[in-house]
């Protein structure tokens, strides 16, 4: 059986994408020429490739969903899709994939959207190099850029997502790869995991979101080589960890976030080779976080390096560089001879009593911080970095 190519344009046999789809068979290619196609509710039920030439526009006229894919091995490539309908009862998307495998959605430009790309019980597919620009202002009447629900083995790579609710959202989705994406100005989170395990997040940039990455109720995650910056606001975070077990957060750069990482009830997390630069808090550990390793990170010029809840410590701090460290190194091995205590008394007090933050940068606070540093009384006395580095660590980012 040979596959054929159906061409869609104003003066062709097929004037609409829908009519071409009706005529197509499995394995065919539909080539859409430049132009404006006012179509909504396009249902793709055959394994076809729909390819746009010169970025043809599909205008949904705010009638609801625009493309719905219900077949395996479908490719959508090179369209400018806009005007998805807004609804408070149905989650309309520009492109939705339902119960399918092996899809490829690439080089799309999505604007005026509610949900962008919505994957639902889809697996083994790719979402590549799309540019999604929303106009989200509030959480309740906006959708997510890339939304994944019960999806496995999907690759989300090279997308540029701006001004939506959650840049990329995963729920009950495992073994996915999120790589080389850029999210900016998400109203809620840049990347959001709920009950999603074994996912990898690599080489992404998250900028100016409500929170850069929110990991919730998940396990075995890897977060490597990301840049998380300027998530700045009274309730903003770089990474939010809640009920996460066995995650690796390695080689990331956190710059100018109000709170770079906030952790709650998360165990066996490895924080290694990260750079924390000019954040309000670098690491804020709330209750019930045990057996975490915080090693070989750079903590540079954060207002607070660490805020810690509770009187005892069962996490390991070792071999980090702290810009506030004032010790000396007599044997010249690059490791300070005096252990470093990353908790300031003030951050301990603020943790107990949030009101006290109003005394930030008061002379009195500097004095008590100093005295606590000299002889710790309140902060957990085993919370120390025994081997603080003397020099900033040059991370090997390729590893």
């Amino acid at each position, binding site marked *: 059986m040979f596959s054929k190519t159906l061409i869609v344009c104003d003066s062709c046999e097929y004037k609409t994408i829908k009519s071409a789809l009706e005529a197509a068979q499995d394995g065919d290619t539909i080539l859409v020429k430049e132009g404006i196609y006012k179509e909504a509710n396009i249902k793709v039920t055959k394994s076809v490739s729909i390819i746009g030439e010169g970025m043809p526009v599909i205008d949904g006229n705010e009638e609801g969903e625009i493309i719905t894919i219900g077949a395996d091995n479908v490719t959508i490539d090179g369209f400018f899709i806009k005007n998805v309908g807004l609804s408070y009862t149905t989650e309309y998307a520009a492109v939705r994939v339902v119960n399918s495998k092996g899809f490829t959605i690439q080089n799309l430009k999505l604007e005026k959207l509610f949900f962008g790309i919505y994957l639902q019980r889809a697996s083994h597919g790719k979402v590549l190099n799309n540019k999604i620009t929303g106009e989200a202002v509030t959480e309740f009447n906006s959708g997510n850029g890339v939304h994944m629900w019960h999806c496995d083995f999907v690759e989300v790579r090279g997308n540029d997502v701006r001004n939506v609710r959650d840049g990329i959202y995963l729920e009950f989705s495992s073994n996915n790869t999120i790589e080389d994406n850029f999210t900016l100005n998400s109203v809620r989170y840049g990347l959001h995991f709920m009950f999603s395990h074994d996912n990898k997040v690599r080489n992404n940039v998250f900028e100016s979101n409500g929170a850069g990455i929110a990991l919730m109720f998940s396990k075995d995650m890897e977060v490597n080589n990301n840049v998380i910056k300027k998530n*700045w606001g009274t309730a903003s975070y770089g990474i939010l960890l809640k009920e996460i077990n066995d995650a690796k957060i390695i080689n990331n750069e956190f710059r100018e976030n109000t709170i770079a990482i906030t952790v709650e009830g998360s165990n066996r997390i490895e924080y290694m080779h990260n750079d924390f630069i000019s954040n309000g808090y670098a690491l804020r550990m709330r209750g019930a976080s045990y057996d975490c390793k915080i090693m070989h990170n750079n903590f540079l010029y954060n207002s607070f390096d660490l805020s810690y809840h509770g009187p005892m410590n069962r996490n390991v701090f070792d071999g980090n560089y702290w810009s506030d460290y004032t010790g000396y190194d007599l044997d010249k091995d690059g490791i300070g001879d005096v252990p470093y205590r990353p908790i300031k008394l003030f951050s301990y007090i603020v943790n*107990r009593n949030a009101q006290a933050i109003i005394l930030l*940068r008061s002379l009195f606070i500097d004095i008590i911080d100093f005295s606590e540093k000299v002889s710790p009384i309140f902060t957990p006395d085993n919370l120390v970095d025994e081997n603080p580095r003397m020099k900033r660590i040059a991370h090997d980012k390729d590893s």
Partner: protein
Amino acid sequence: MLKILKYSFYDLMRSRWSYVYFLFYLLLGVVLLFLNNDLNKAVITLMNVIIMLVPLIGTIFGVMYYYNSREFTELLLAQPIKRSSIFLGQYLGVATSLMMSLVVGLGIPFVFYGVFYSDAIWDFILLLIAGAFLTFIFTALAFVIGLSNENRIKGFGYAILVWLFLAVIYDGIFLMSLIYFEDYPLDTFSLGAVLLNPVDLSRVLILLKLDISALLGYTGAVFHKFFGTNMGLILSFVMLTVWVAVPAFFIWRISKRKDF
């Protein structure tokens, strides 16, 4: 009064201390700007210096000037001049010259750096206003202390104590009460506590203007809501003015009744 103000002012303008003070701020401004290259960070560091150093220098310098010019004051008292004019004139002379050193010393490097073309201009102006208020407040307190204590050592002691109390101990008590009463809603209390202390008030006013205010979280939001309104801003400037006016009133009253 104006004549005495003018005399005190010119006297101080000629003195070495004013120059040292002026040069100190000039140097601080230059070093901060050229080592830092970041106007916002420079404003934060300046804030730390201003809320600590300006009150200290205002107090010490005020007391020093009062005791040192005592003989001249006695000479003036023998003349047919109103007492209040003498002391208020001296006070305003000292405070104005200190304020000039601060404003000009910090202003020059910042103007050359281009603060007028920067977003930080309002932060910077607020910083200078706070510094000016603190100078007037603490110099006035110093004069009150000088007037009520014949003994120089005692006077100096009290002056240092007043500075220590407002700059350090007050915050300690504030913090203790926050912790002690943590089960109660403390928003209004902490607003009040901040409003009552000019050092804290200046610190919070400046902090809220800076990026760093995001760190303040919920508490910051409460303060923002209060100080962000015209009402809050006016109230805080009224409080600062009261802090100048009350000691000035005491200077007037004590000088009228005092037996020299």
